[in-house]
């Protein structure tokens, strides 16, 4: 079939489409991470509450479930926007490659179904089902959340490592959907993402209770509210560093141009140093701290390892270095910091079975959730901007995928406005929940007002 070639969009419209996609994704991902991590926290608290009869756990479970009701709803609708945008903004991608990357999305559809169904049951049948059965209905929620994250990142990994199809005269043939889904980037990228989700949810929830404790509320409810999610996140943090390190090593041969952009490395060679910090100005990495042979050692464990630089990449195919480099630096710095924060608690617990005494521990925990979100976003900037100018790595340019219709920037303005309002509203509503009486999650205004 001919007729699917785009006439070019204006550069302004292309920029608008990219920004709109980035904002919508960056917004959705935060809620998605809470959607992956919070059910596990709530179900665990509910289970402990039943086992021990400890009222603090019961209250925490209800509180988290109620917050989940709000967060999931907004996560689901913001995800729907993304499905629309895949077609509305990137019809060139979907027309040519929709069938190749469709399978993980089809699977994801079923994960969403399970998630939405059991969310309805978990929240609204809190007092209708026997307690044990009710807890069990939370488990599909946990599994489906992780599964959705897995499937959607499979699709993204395919954009980095496109496999499972042949191109004949610009047309896609012989599609092998399973090979596309399980491409070389899939294992590490999906694991890294799922771990990130637990870090965001864990540190994020713990941060809320750290603020409470800083304000002097130190009873059991707040302590457990901090310790339970914090422990989950702190256990995840070191694993995340190991996986992230493997991911970077994978880039060295999987997407060397991206690694070169991450490091701002101009010249291919051996004995390549590692640049920490710094800015890429006029084609040079400046003000960076250099660790001699560092990059060569990280990539191949030997100083003589050859690392490919930007000189091997045609100028038109280079990603912008600064966002990729700085994004990566921020992610690694925060990842290391969060690991140390977790270790601090670990040491204090080992010595005294208690939280560290310093108020600085609470202060840092209070901001750890925000820090994890920043690591998450900067990690995605590294991945997505580092892939530019390709939307499908070395197969399709972003400029060829965008909707050629004029006026896309209007969509960007509207979407920005909507997300600003929504962000404010979520903050407001979550704060409302914080100060409200704790009730079972199915109860709301309809129960408050007398019949």
């Amino acid at each position, binding site marked *: 079939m001919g007729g699917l070639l785009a006439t070019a969009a204006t550069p302004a419209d292309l920029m608008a489409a990219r920004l709109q996609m980035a904002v919508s994704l960056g917004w959705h991902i935060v809620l998605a991470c809470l959607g992956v991590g919070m059910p596990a926290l709530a179900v665990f608290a509910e289970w402990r509450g039943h086992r021990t009869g400890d009222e603090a756990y019961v209250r925490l479970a209800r509180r988290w479930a109620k917050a989940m009701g709000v967060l999931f709803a907004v996560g689901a609708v913001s995800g729907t926007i993304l499905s629309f945008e895949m077609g509305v903004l990137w019809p060139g991608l979907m027309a040519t490659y929709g069938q190749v990357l469709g399978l993980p999305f089809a699977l994801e559809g079923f994960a969403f179904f399970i998630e939405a169904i059991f969310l309805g049951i978990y929240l609204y049948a809190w007092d209708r089902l026997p*307690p044990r059965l009710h807890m069990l209905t939370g488990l599909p929620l946990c599994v489906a959340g992780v599964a959705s994250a897995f499937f959607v990142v499979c699709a993204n990994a395919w954009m980095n490592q496109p496999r499972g199809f042949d191109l004949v005269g610009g047309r896609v043939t012989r599609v092998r*959907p399973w090979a596309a889904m399980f491409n070389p980037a899939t294992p590490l990228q999906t694991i890294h993402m799922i771990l990130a989700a637990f870090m965001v949810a864990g540190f994020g929830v713990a941060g809320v209770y750290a603020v409470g404790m800083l304000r002097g509320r130190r009873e059991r409810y707040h302590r457990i509210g901090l310790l339970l999610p914090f422990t989950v996140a702190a256990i995840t943090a070191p694993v995340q560093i190991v996986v992230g390190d493997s991911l970077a090593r994978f880039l060295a041969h999987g997407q060397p141009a991206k690694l070169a952009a991450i490091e701002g490395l101009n010249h291919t060679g051996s004995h390549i140093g590692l640049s920490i910090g710094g800015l890429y100005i006029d084609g040079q990495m400046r003000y960076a701290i250099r660790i001699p042979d560092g990059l060569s050692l990280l990539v191949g464990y030997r100083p003589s390892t050859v690392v490919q630089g930007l000189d091997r990449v045609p100028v038109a195919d280079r990603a912008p270095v600064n966002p990729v480099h700085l994004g990566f630096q921020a992610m690694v710095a925060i990842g290391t910091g969060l690991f140390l924060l977790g270790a601090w608690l670990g040491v204090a617990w080992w010595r005294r079975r208690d939280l560290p005494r310093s108020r600085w521990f609470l202060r840092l925990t209070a901001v750890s959730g925000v820090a994890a979100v920043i690591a998450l976003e900067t990690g995605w900037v590294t991945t997505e901007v580092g892939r530019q100018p390709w939307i499908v790595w070395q197969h399709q340019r972003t400029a060829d995928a965008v909707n050629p219709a004029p006026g896309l920037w209007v*969509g960007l303005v509207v979407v920005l406005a909507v997300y600003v309002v929504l962000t404010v509203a979520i903050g407001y509503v979550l704060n*409302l929940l914080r100060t409200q009486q*704790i009730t079972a999650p199915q109860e709301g205004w309809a129960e408050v007002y007398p019949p």
Partner: protein
Amino acid sequence: MTAAQWLLILSWAGLTLYALLGGADFGGGFWDALAGGARRGLAQRRLIEHSVGPVWEANHVWLIFVIVMFWTCFPGVFASVASTLYIPLTLVALGIIARGAAFAFRKASTELWQLRLFGGGFALSSVLTPFFLGTVAGGVASGRVPYGLAKGDLVGSWWNPTSILAGVLAVGTTAYLAAAFLTADARRGGQIQLADAFRRRGLGTAVVTGIIALGGIFILRSDAPALYAGLTGRALPIVVLSALAGLGSMALLIARRYGLTRITAALAVAAVLWGWAIAQYPVMLPPHVTVSDAAATPAVLHATLATVIVGMVLLVPSLLWLFTLFQRTPQPAQPNNGPAVTP
């Protein structure tokens, strides 16, 4: 039958379920808007809240299912529709986000002004979203979305007589479905007065929507002759079935047979969608892109079909459980987790 045909049928079944279940949830928002002042409308709004609350997210996923099925199995068609109709689709997306968010926010609120604000957002977006979805359907059905990226008229493709007709009908249909469903919910909850109120609304919207649909016949004849020919030709039996089911559900509403009304009301709406599909089959987009032209390669179709079949094995029992769980008479809450506790 080929895999592509099976997948088209499955997608259309998904679309039908979205129209019926998701549609009724939008209709709930419509009636929420018209329920009147805070005190007078309380009982109605509470009924809507209880009926829609547990199920709307699951009902909403049908839309995502349809989108994903189309982009995987008929990628060129998906890309053509999404690029030409990007304006109404963006509006639909915004409506969806406003609807879901406002509904969830309202649930977490207790102050009157918050309820008003979020309730207003919920109600407004519940009307606008089906309208724009209808205009999208009208644009495709009247042959205004050619194959190719943004090849159609960016405005005329969705702002035309057929689209506007379809948009208005979509709003009417969702309101009608919601009234029919809520009537039964109200009676099961023992709220006879409320059931009567929704019965009157159901009858009213049925009459209005029916008249618009009749008038629409003339619009289609001049504005979308190909669709008109299909609807009055091959698809005529289904169109007649829809009309009969519509009349039947009015009779059942009058006779207060609310359980049966649900079935006939759903049938009337589903028949419209299938009538459209049959009228147009096998052409998906003009000029002559058919199902077999647009279909993805066989390996993709087979993998998707297998996924859908396996997925249904998980999905159907879960979904049935969800619906039966909340369709049972609400038991007096038996607090398992201890009484409500203060923070």
